């Protein structure tokens, strides 16, 4: 059982790292946009680029394609990252009133019946999608954009795989929590339980808020 928890940690580490790395893509995204609109007004720069070898890399059309490439890689790398940090939104009307154990059962079945089938079915079918892009050496539909579409399309598979890993990690923890020996239960970091919210979740800090609130403020573990 403790072994399961160790595997869970590894499975969580990968989407965590991928998401955090992917998060930095926002910086080049902003830079590309700013460069594109600035040089659109400063035509002499664009004209200089147009007549230089740089044109192959930074024509306006290519830059505008770089924008969605960066955006796509960013959000696909974050799919699993968001789950291990419990950032995926839930309709918690009923769930919050349930006992921790019931919540754990919901998560257990949800992962097996919804998350796994989704990631596996769409993941497998996306392999064909990527393969077709690779074998045809797919390029931009505009013909003057970026080439090698298979690279960015591969991020779909990567993203779904990261979400699958996040699901495996959470499932293993829930297995230990539900079926494991009592002494191990306390060692299980149950991010997905509302009474033990993940401590490293970066969002608006609850403690900043009005203390006179009639709802009991949930303390971070």
């Amino acid at each position, binding site marked *: 059982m403790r072994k399961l928890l160790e595997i869970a940690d590894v499975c969580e580490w990968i989407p965590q790292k991928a*998401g*955090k790395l*992917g*998060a*930095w893509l*926002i*910086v080049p*995204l*902003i830079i590309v*946009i*700013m460069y*594109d*609109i600035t040089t659109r007004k400063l035509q002499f720069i664009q004209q200089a680029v147009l007549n230089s070898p740089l044109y192959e890399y930074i024509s306006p059309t290519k830059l505008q394609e770089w*924008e*969605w490439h960066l*955006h*796509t890689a*960013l*959000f*696909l*790398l*974050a*799919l*699993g*990252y*968001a789950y291990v*940090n419990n*950032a*995926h*939104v*839930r*309709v*918690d*009307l009923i*769930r*919050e009133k349930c006992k921790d154990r019931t919540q754990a059962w*919901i998560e257990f079945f*949800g*992962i097996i*019946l*919804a*998350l796994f*089938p*989704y990631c596996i*079915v*769409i993941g497998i*079918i*996306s392999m064909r999608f990527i393969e077709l892009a690779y074998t045809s050496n797919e390029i931009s539909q505009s013909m003057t954009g970026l080439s090698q579409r298979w690279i960015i399309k591969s991020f*779909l598979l990567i993203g779904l795989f990261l979400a699958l890993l996040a699901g495996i990690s959470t499932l293993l923890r829930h297995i230990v929590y539900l079926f494991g020996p009592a002494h191990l239960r306390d060692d299980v970091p149950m991010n997905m339980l509302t009474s033990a919210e993940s401590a490293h979740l*970066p*969002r*608006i*800090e*609850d403690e*900043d*808020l*009005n203390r006179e*609130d009639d*709802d009991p403020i*949930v303390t971070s573990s």
Partner: protein
Amino acid sequence: MYFEDFLPVIMFAMLACGLFTGFPVAFVVGGTGIAFGFIGMYFDVFSMIEFFNVPERIWGGAAENPVLVAVPCFIFMGTMLEKSGVAEDLLKILELLLKRVPGGLALAVTAMGTIMAATTGIIGASVVMMSLMALPAMLRAGYQKELATGTIAASATLGILIPPSIMLVIMADLLAISVGNLFIGAILPGLLLSSLYFIYIIVISALKPHIAPPIADDKMVDSKTLMLMVLKGFVPPVILIVMVLGSIFGGIATPTEAAGVGAFGSLMLAVFNGRLSISTLRDVAERTALTTGMIFFIFLGATTFSYVFRSLGGEHLIIAGVEYMDLHSWSLLVLLMFTIFILGFFFDFLEITLIILPVFAPIVELLDFGVHVEGRDIIYWFAILVAVNLQTSFLTPPFGFALFYLKGVAPKIVKMQHIYKGIIPFVMLQLIGLGSVMAFPGLALYLPSVLLS
């Protein structure tokens, strides 16, 4: 009829049940889609290869869709403003300035939503940005959670109605009508809704001051201090909004690119405030990634669900249902509006437009509304009615995108029940707005007739 003809109906029921388990929305909606694909295979009305269309839809809808680049940018902007304290300073000042007006802070949020609506037509971006900036301040000021979340969700979705709006562009394309006419036609209905929110907030805050508490006397400051605070706290965000709006209306950037300008501007403000460090930047970038991942996984799931629903004949079921009623003119129009409203509980705007517009727009176009609306104007009037209705679909539980995005970034003390409860009065206002545009077609038709003649 066979059992399998009703699979789309059962799909709805399963989705609703699944949502209420509290398992993440994105996985529930996607998982329901996959499950019913397999059930469809069992009944021989779906085939495995059809799932191949899902990656294509994800690709065209979310990835290779340049408009959505605005989403991470605006989220970054909102997060950075919140993190660097700019948003807080701004709202503190608004609070002080608006202390004599009931619900002043909520009014400020509505005004901000209306202004931001002119910069983006992407719901995910505006809801998240507004929530990050305004929700903590409202809660800290002691606002009732329902009122705070309802105000934010409703004002932030104005962006889909007030131009520029990707929804209006898609509708114009489907109907082969002028984008310009639709853009201009949507302005008055958008402002009407915004005014309705204003009136509601003022009335409810006057009637129940405890849900929108006015500022306590001991927090009052003298006018000199206030002036300084205004300079320090008001000017930077105003510069930012001017940058974003100015880059669009000055012809420097497209609305999509203006989101990048906003993100860049928020970074610069943090630099000037001396609050930018690598760790702040990392924190903001990671938060942006979390929120972006949350939003797009919902898209991934929803596009799967909608595809399977359509493939199982759900679209046909809806159309057959409406046609079976065999109604004309006003009753058909009202039935269509009702259908769109109900579909809005479960689908996003794109799927609803694809189900309703191609089939019913040509029929509505030929209806006779007498002198109420002239023949050639009917299609524009109808399009605006659909647009107002679709804006509402972002707000209606259980499957309301705006509500999910808000919940995704809200503090933990804000529960889905607060959000669901808080949105009800605003959905009522939406219906009043919709009814007004039906009763007074001039709201949709007057501006285009004057400006584009």
